[in-house]
């Protein structure tokens, strides 16, 4: 299968990622190759009888439901790009299509 230029742009939009015009053909070509390569997984029976494997503990461990203060060495004012009076500052929302 091949991924078109338009499809790359659509996916990039979903991923909130700018892609530059000149890089588009290479990106489309590489994505097509990767998706072609992983398409060999269609050999797996799709009958849904295979139980999904999840590593880690079998059951969720519950802990006591109490508020524990976060132990941050410093606050967001020291690591956020723009933080004022307890808020992360962002440009105006603009048009969300």
């Amino acid at each position, binding site marked *: 299968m091949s*991924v078109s230029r338009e499809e*790359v742009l659509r*996916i*990039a939009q*979903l*991923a*909130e*990622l*700018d*892609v*530059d015009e000149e*890089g588009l053909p290479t*990106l489309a070509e*590489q*994505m097509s*190759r*990767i*998706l072609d*390569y*992983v*398409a*060999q*997984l*269609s*050999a*797996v*029976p*799709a009958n849904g009888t*295979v*139980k*999904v*494997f*999840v*590593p*880690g*503990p079998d059951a*969720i*461990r519950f*802990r006591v439901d109490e508020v524990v203060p976060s*132990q*941050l*060495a*410093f*606050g*967001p004012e*020291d*690591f*956020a*790009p*723009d933080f004022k009076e307890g808020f*992360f500052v*962002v*440009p*105006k*929302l*603009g*048009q*969300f299509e």
Partner: protein
Amino acid sequence: MSDAKAVADRLVKAKRLNALLTPPKELRKSLNTQIAAARPTGVLYGMPVAVKDNICTLEFTTTCGSRILEGYRSPYEATAVAKLKAAGALIAGKTNCDEFAMGSSTEHSAYGRVLHPLDKARVPGGSSGGSAALVGAGALPAALGSETGGSVRQPAAFCGVVGIKPTYGRVSRYGLVAFGSSLDQIGVFGRSVHDAARVLSVISGRDPRDSTCEDRDPLRLPTVPESLQGFVVGLPKEYFPPELDPAVRRACDRAIRMMKELGAAVREVSLPHTPYAVPTYYVIAPAEASSNLARYDGVRYGPRFNGATDLRSLYRSTRGQGFGPEVRRRILVGTYVLSSGYYDAYYRRAQQMRALIAQDFRNVFDRGVDLLFTPTVPSPAFKAGEKLADPIAMYMSDIFTVTANLAGLPAISLPIGRVKGLPIGGQLIGQAFLEDEMIEAAYALERVVPATDEA
């Protein structure tokens, strides 16, 4: 116990490798402070341990090898780092890595590629290439890395050092920057099995801050065994294909012979779904990455890139300029396989295949096999630039390592020989939470295998 100046001097001497991201002056200053505060009764007192740059530290920046986190200082530290410090270890700076741990050569770092310690034209492997190169160059006894698909074992094999990937859930992921959450584990590099194992034992164990970390005591170190009597070692035939590099095969054959001489029973086994492991991984890992990396949007951490007139263009321009090509590619592939209309064909199939791959291992272990022995990587370290233009060729470097991540199993790579001076790694894959058995066998093999001899 080592003094801070000697530790820093050794690291600064290895500067040409571009393996350490921490500037020398900052490193010296921090080591002086740390050594004064280190607990003299700790089991790792004075041991310098460098930390991959995707593991949060309070002492140094945490950039994940990315521009999008340039200069970022974490307000908290990883549990693994806190445990190291509590044991008296010194955090000896942050190591260069593929951006967000995505890569197999440490060429995908925004801060330049890492050089192989024995041949500067070659790659040290990746993504934890900085940690592997520093231990391989003798600058450190041990370092932390992280694994999602082989990012500790593959560079360990390339650089001629020991690399351990613990069972999923053995070590807390708190403070490890998330890439593929169902696969990620912090791993350890060491000059020897013992160096790696004792660091692993310190960082392992329960952590209330990570619900995927098992409620278990820290790993207890086994003693060095006299023999491998009683061990049944399986050789999965899928890991010894006809096209395997002949020198890698010779080194493996020699190691297998030695395990037999030590008394191990060796038998051929089959893990039939192995050929699907890399494609499975390259659906699941990018899918999880596309979700995990959504948080880097220029609002909360790291730098913000200019040119944004509204919120959405802030997201897009920050992410477009902040992420490098491999990360962008994986975010796009991950978004694609999770998008409407493709989910069943890709993601669901990959999840099913992952279950079959895990079942392959259970079948073999249920039939009395204790451990599996395989080559770690199909070939020795490749040349820089050789696989950069071809993502699939790069991905194939993980072919023998991704399976343990998909199945959540522990595995260790140790040097078993060389070809034209370049190290070759052999891998032992163990059963979940039986790292002690795996380490025991690695101790025994390490004692007899001529790790620096030509195969």
